[in-house]
């Protein structure tokens, strides 16, 4: 009898082990996304390959910790989603697998929008596949600009200041109730990067070994940002709070213009009361030398430690197959980063999605893919805020921080 029980047990174990599984971690999702993946996209894959996809739906707040712990413990997922700023650290730490070998048999990679594709490449190698994009463009109130006799849209920094001042609205006590331009005071570093690129500057030197943001172009860009707050006062430094809970400033009519992604349009459709989406326009943010659209693209990586490399690649290909990619993006109002997706029903029939798409394709730029990016970003936030709040001059602040960035990169190079 015990022998029989053992045989049944072993047979059961044997049967269980024949069903191969693959682990997938998804971070950008909502209920519709989960239903789409669980009921359509993943079952298709499971049926085709005879495997089980074990999917975990995570949130951004815990992703870093979970990834770090799982990699350190050797229990990482086979395929996982990460954000626009990860490729440098993922490649340097050997977490994301280099995918160069798969590219020659996968012509679809040429269909990705360049700024989105840049997000997954570093050192001339490919480490992932773009999965969704969110470009940041100028969203403005056409109606307010027209009635104020302003150029629609503003094209240059000077025109922007003029319209920002004219469209700013104060109450009887002198408090700002509508900002001329909303500058997202919590993310001044991001606005600075846009201005820097618009002004012809770069964050790092072409070999990515030294800081370049303290160039003349960088100092001008930061001075412009400081002036918007402190000299022209188009927006209070601390920003203004939303008048209604969960209603963003633009949709709530509390700002006339903002550099923001496509969710601004979704929110106008959902929340705006005093105006409609017909009163809104989108354009590249006003610039001094070149128009720039910063593109934030989240992507899929294959874990370097996976023992199912081929299957993992098949899963990535399946998830990013044009029809699946478009459906996935549609559930969350993101832009599918494939050029061929421009003619999809989703992009064509969603207000302003085509405009966002074209601006991303034409003027898109992505963040530098270096291992120290997260630390550089934290320090840059501090350096930019020091200038905005007058603790240092823009030049002093950028010069001081550039030295630290140089040292940070040099430290890594000394280790190699």
């Amino acid at each position: 009898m015990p022998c029989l029980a053992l045989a049944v047990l072993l047979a059961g174990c044997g049967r269980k082990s024949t069903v191969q599984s693959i682990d997938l971690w998804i971070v950008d999702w909502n209920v519709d996304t989960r239903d789409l993946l669980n009921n359509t996209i993943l079952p298709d894959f499971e049926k085709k390959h005879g495997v089980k996809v074990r999917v975990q739906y995570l949130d951004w707040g815990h992703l870093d910790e979970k990834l770090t712990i799982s990699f350190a413990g050797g229990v990482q997922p086979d395929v996982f989603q990460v954000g626009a700023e990860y490729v440098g650290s993922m490649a340097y730490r050997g977490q994301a697998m280099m995918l160069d070998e798969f590219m020659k048999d996968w012509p679809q990679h040429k269909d990705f929008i360049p700024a989105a594709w840049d997000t997954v490449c570093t050192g001339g190698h490919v480490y992932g596949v773009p999965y969704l994009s969110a470009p940041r463009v100028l969203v403005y109130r056409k109606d307010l600009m027209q009635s104020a006799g302003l150029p629609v849209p503003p094209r240059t920094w000077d025109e922007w200041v003029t319209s920002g001042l004219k469209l700013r609205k104060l109450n009887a006590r002198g408090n700002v109730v509508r900002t001329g331009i909303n500058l997202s005071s919590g993310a001044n570093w991001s606005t600075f990067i846009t201005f820097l690129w618009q002004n012809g500057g770069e964050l790092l030197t072409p070999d990515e070994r030294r800081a370049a943001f303290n160039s003349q172009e960088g100092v001008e860009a930061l001075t412009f940002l400081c002036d918007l707050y402190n000299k022209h006062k188009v927006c209070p430094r601390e920003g203004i709070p939303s008048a209604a809970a969960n209603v963003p400033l633009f949709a709530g009519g509390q700002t006339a213009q903002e550099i923001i992604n496509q969710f601004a349009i979704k929110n106008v459709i959902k929340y705006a009361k005093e105006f409609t989406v017909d009163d809104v326009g989108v354009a590249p943010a006003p610039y001094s030398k070149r128009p720039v659209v910063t593109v934030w693209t989240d992507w899929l990586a294959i874990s370097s430690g996976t023992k199912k490399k081929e299957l993992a690649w098949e899963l990535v290909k399946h998830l990013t197959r044009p029809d699946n990619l478009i459906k996935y993006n549609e559930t969350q109002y993101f832009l599918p980063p494939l050029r061929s997706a421009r003619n999809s029903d989703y992009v064509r029939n969603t207000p302003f999605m085509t405009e966002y798409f074209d601006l991303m394709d034409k003027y898109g730029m992505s963040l530098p893919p270096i291992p120290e990016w997260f630390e550089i970003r934290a320090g840059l936030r501090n350096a930019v805020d020091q200038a905005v709040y007058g603790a240092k001059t823009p030049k002093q602040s950028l010069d001081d921080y550039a030295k630290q960035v140089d040292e940070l990169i040099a430290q890594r190079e000394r280790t190699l």
Partner: protein
Amino acid sequence: MNGHRMTGLERREARAAYGFLAPALFLFVVFVAIPVVAAVLLSFTRYDIFHRPVWIGFDNYRNLMRDEVFHQSLVNTAFYAACTIIPGMTLSLALALILNAKLRGITFYRAAYYLPVVTSLVAVAMIWMWMLQPTSGLINQGLANFWEPFVRWLGGALNTVSFGLIGDTLMKYQAPQPSWLGTPTGIISVGRYPLSLTLQAIVMVALWAGLGWNMVIFLAGLQGIPTHLYESAMLDGAGPWQRFLNITWPLLKPTTFFIFVTAVIGASQVFGTVYVMTNGGPNNTTTTIVHQIFQNAFAFLKMGYASAMAFVLFLIVFAVSMFNWIFLRGESDYGL
């Protein structure tokens, strides 16, 4: 060593004692002693979990010397400690003295003041974040609601005594609506590091949240003081202040010393409130030493650098504790 040879019984007892101690000792060595030694060693390396540690000598410590954010965290932690320890202890003692009285319903008040201590830190932080919200928060709403009647009353009063200009100006001055958790500036600075309004708001929350804990310990200390001492003092004609100064305060000295030492250590390690309410911002004006350790270790994966910070924190806490031990500890029990 002293020439004493253990008997068989003593040896058996010693073996039994070590046997009983072994589990705790094993856990202590594995989970405390080894990690502490490893952390000290790591502080001399560059280590990101994914690559082998690289020995870099004192580089991490040299970098700490010129790390402005770390310096800001030292200033912020010192300010936090200065504003929470002595004022917090004073308030707790005052509260404990009040709640030591034999009044009806005193148990309810004791429980009420202790409630923040047993409430989740995250819940406390979230509630305060709502209260400190600039437009709809309870505090700014309260300021706005009380401000206008107050200035109208004061302005009117000044008008009646022929200070019309001041009165009129005052009435035009609107209620302050500070962005409590979004202001990186403050009236006072230490060198180039401002002690921001946001840091002051966090201190306010910490004072409120920590009041009950110290109060309960003071209360226990107060209840350990024999009542006959007070009775004798009263017979001798001592007033309340004299009784406090000559009986309560000296006999509370061990309790005060304990609270002070633990408060210093707690303030040096402040993290939870900061992490939940501001994550060190705006502009690093609320970052603290432990927040920097967390940031460097788990956001930037600079384990070596974070270990160096942790070791510096250990040295600070050790030095302050030794100072307290040597200079503040004293005989204080009147031989009771």
